[in-house]
């Protein structure tokens, strides 16, 4: 605890990036809201402000620069006051943009609601129509509509509204579709309500937020596009003026008096930008994904923020894990997934790491080569000595050489762990060439050997296969082949058979045992299944709530477990041909790792618990030759 506390100030990367991001975003949104409010207020007050008539011409004062007396922004080619024209023009632009948005929202939402609720043929017909409209390039369709209706501000408004209807129709249809199958809608239908009542009474209120979001995101475009049409001379016609037509008129004077066109453009920009900022702010606020900060990409290696570790214990083991602690920092919470884990693996030895889901066994496995995602994962204490070298202190380059080289991983679900867009051959060849300077041709030959080794039939032809073309068992064989590519000293297998069929499980286990023995690789085998451990592993370590509670030779632990949790876990394993055996589930749930209890974490579920179990930290103590348990009164001990 004290370690974590002292490290707190140094841990910005692991902290609350999502909260920080939201803050920045909100600040931008606030900026947008401020600007928008200012513009709208000025525009609304324009008739009351002491401004000259925007249409009053004064040839004597033509093309005054900004800052001229009486004309803060200067005048145009007819001597009209630019500030006044700007505000009156913005009034028109905002009104047109807003009206177009409302029309598009009304019509588009109606289409979306009806299509989503009615479904079937009506939905199909409406959406085909919408697709057809969307097959036109956006602005081109608006142009075509103006061509039909004739140039003019009102026609431009209609054109922009029509062009935007599909966005609303599509969005609203999607949301409506979700609600149309919900219970409260079914209930209303069964009670005999009319479709229109259901649609507008029950569904509409739920769809409204989506309509609002779509409106805020499209309003900016609509203002831009109406300005665009006016700029082309197809929107507002003189003497009427909006920002776009002001810009269009000013364009002719670009070389002599650039301010006449630059100023209205700046206004459009400020207007659209502030609308977009506010829209983004609203969307972020309503988007739960961004709120939870889920969309954070993990870096290449887990962050390590530990106090300088003391002297290493005596060497000798291939892998020695000492006091490893890995935490997940999510917002203000700290999940202690791994809370001080120690174990060793000798060369060629097979250690099983057993525990329920959430016990921290996978996080332990990933921590060894620093593959836990950061953020939110941080290794806060301990040491991982591989061949005497601390992987937690290694530079990225050295770590990378170990990964897939001397230490290889096989993960749980081969469908998600293989890259879907590369062939199996490509992925194995890549693994080989990352560690050895071999040509592609040589690597391919080796890849075929590897595939044959894991008993994939017609190995040569399978090189060109994509993962989705293989069965689950075959995919996992490919993963194993990939792990074996560089003759690793240690294979870390993280529940490699859990996602497979039972018959395939046995084959894959058999394969792993044989290959590891052939190559003399040590294995760290993570599983929740004691049956698997008994078949494969020399020794077993049992994890509970982030800590090892018992460790020892597999046979002995199975025969006479020392920790009550181990005993319970063994009782859960069904034995083939012994249907009379009662399978015991363990009552209760493991404690949440962000609020671990004092003392033994298992005490609350343990039938033998007493006061001293909850008194203080309990050490992993020797109970016999090569055996240890974290229990004050082990079920079995040497003495």
């Amino acid at each position, binding site marked *: 605890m004290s370690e974590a506390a002292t490290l707190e100030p140094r841990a910005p990367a692991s902290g609350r990036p999502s909260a920080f991001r939201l803050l920045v975003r909100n600040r931008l949104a606030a900026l947008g809201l401020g600007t928008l409010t200012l513009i709208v207020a000025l525009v609304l007050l324009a008739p009351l402000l002491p401004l000259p008539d925007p249409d009053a011409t004064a040839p004597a004062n033509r093309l005054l620069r900004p800052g001229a007396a009486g004309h803060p922004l200067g005048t145009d080619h007819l001597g009209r006051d630019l500030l006044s024209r700007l505000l009156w023009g913005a009034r028109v632009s905002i009104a047109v943009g807003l009206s177009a948005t409302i029309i598009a929202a009304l019509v588009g939402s109606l289409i979306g609601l009806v299509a989503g609720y009615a479904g079937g043929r009506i939905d199909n017909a409406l959406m085909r129509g919408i697709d057809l409209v969307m097959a036109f390039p956006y602005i081109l369709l608006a142009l*075509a509509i103006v061509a039909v209706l004739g140039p003019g501000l009102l026609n431009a408004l209609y054109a922009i509204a029509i062009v935007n209807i599909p966005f609303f129709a599509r969005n609203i249809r999607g949301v409506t579709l979700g609600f149309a199958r919900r219970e409260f809608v079914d209930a209303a239908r069964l009670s005999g309500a009319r479709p229109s009542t259901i649609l507008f009474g029950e569904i509409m209120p739920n769809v409204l937020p989506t309509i609002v979001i779509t409106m805020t995101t499209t309003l900016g475009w609509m203002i831009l596009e109406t300005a665009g049409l006016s700029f082309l001379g197809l929107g507002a016609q003189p003497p009427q003026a909006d920002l776009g037509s002001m810009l269009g008129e000013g364009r002719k004077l670009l070389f002599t008096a650039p301010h006449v066109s*630059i100023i209205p453009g700046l206004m459009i*920009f400020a207007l659209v930008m502030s609308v977009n900022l506010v829209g983004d702010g609203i969307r972020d606020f309503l988007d739960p994904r961004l709120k939870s900060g889920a969309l*954070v990409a993990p870096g290449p290696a887990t962050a390590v923020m530990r106090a300088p570790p003391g002297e290493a214990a005596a060497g000798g083991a291939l892998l020695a894990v000492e006091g490893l602690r890995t935490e997940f920092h999510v917002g203000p919470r700290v999940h202690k997934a791994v809370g001080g884990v120690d174990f060793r693996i000798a060369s060629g030895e097979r250690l099983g790491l057993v525990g329920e889901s959430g016990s921290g066994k996978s996080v332990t496995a990933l921590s060894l080569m620093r593959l836990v995602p950061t953020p939110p994962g941080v290794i806060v204490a301990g040491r991982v000595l591989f061949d005497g070298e601390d992987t937690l202190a290694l530079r990225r380059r050295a770590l990378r050489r170990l990964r*897939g*080289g001397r230490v290889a991983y096989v993960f749980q679900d081969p469908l998600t762990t293989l890259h879907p867009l590369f062939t199996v051959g490509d992925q194995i060849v890549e693994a080989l060439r990352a560690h050895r300077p071999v040509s592609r041709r040589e690597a391919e030959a080796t890849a075929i050997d590897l595939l044959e080794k894991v008993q994939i039939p017609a190995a040569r032809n399978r090189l060109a296969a994509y993962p989705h073309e293989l069965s689950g068992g075959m995919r996992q064989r490919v993963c194993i082949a990939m792990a074996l590519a560089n003759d690793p000293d240690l294979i870390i297998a993280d529940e490699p058979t859990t996602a497979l069929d039972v018959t395939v499980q046995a084959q894959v286990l058999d394969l792993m045992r044989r290959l590891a023995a052939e190559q003399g690789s040590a294995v760290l085998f993570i599983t929740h299944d004691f049956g698997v451990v008994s078949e494969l592993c020399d020794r077993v370590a049992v994890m509970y709530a982030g800590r090892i509670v018992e460790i020892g030779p597999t046979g002995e632990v199975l025969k006479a477990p020392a920790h009550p949790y181990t005993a319970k876990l063994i009782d859960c394993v069904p034995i083939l041909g012994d249907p009379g055996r009662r399978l015991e589930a363990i009552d209760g749930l493991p404690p949440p790792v962000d609020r671990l209890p004092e003392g033994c974490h298992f005490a609350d579920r343990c039938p033998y618990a007493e006061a001293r179990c909850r008194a203080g930290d309990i050490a992993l103590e020797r109970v016999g030759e090569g055996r240890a348990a974290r229990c004050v009164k082990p079920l079995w001990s040497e003495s």
Partner: protein
Amino acid sequence: MWGYIGKRLLATIPILIGLSIIVFSMMALIPGDPATAILGAYATPENVARLNQQLGLDRSLPEQYLTWAGNLLQGDMGRSYALNRPVSDEVSERFGATLILAGAALVLCSVFGLLAGVVAAVRQFGWTDRIVTFVVLIGISMPSFWLGLLMIVLFAVQLRWLPASGMYAVYGGGGLADLLRHLAMPAVTLAVVATGVIARLTRTAMLEILRQDYIRTARAKGLPERRVIYRHAFKAALVTVIPVIGIQAGFVLGGAVYIETVFQWPGIGRMLVNAISTRDLLLVQGGVLVVAASYVFFNLLADVAQTLLDPRLRT
């Protein structure tokens, strides 16, 4: 693969037919009598009737459509009375210029949008990310026609680096170098918004993909981080971004209308704006149809590219 492309190609036919029906009916809906418009207000009713018959306007709309579509398939889009030349000649000439402009803009927005998105995702929360995010926000809020004017003021008027308008220099112009000099400003201006949209989307896609299991596998294999990002993650991100690039083709083709007007680019957009002002409707019809069809083609291209990248889509 080829079967899939063939299937997709066939699927564009109903879309093209739908587009042609929409364009045809829009022009048919225009109030007013074309014969009267051509002959003037003092035409005799007999003359108007005769011209209507000549133009086929006395027949039913479906009949008129079939005749029109038949002519269209033979490359006959009618005659522009303002320019007094076949619409197809004018359109094909202008369309080349638009394709050069839009193509250049698409290349620019794809390259820079993807690059900015990837860099922002990899440096998430860093300064690069913040700068990219902010610049993108500015880019997509800026009226492109205004940006074009600013560029002209800066690069053509003040610095005199680049020509302000046209496709080739009037005297002694021609050649690729001259074209590129004229193309630079309009292409960049046209690409800005699309670059922003693509960058935003690429960033999100990369963040999503970097969390996937197969990226962890790539790292567990000991691949250099550069390879993890630019090969494993980027390829997967491309699959989601490519359809969006296809959609951006539509925005670029449409946005060309503004850019061509600002930079006096002799493309189809400027032709359309003029044709609308002079009510040269056959020219509008031909121009709209060709640009819309090319958009369908760009989307087809994006579809095929996506399928090439993702073997799971090839069934």
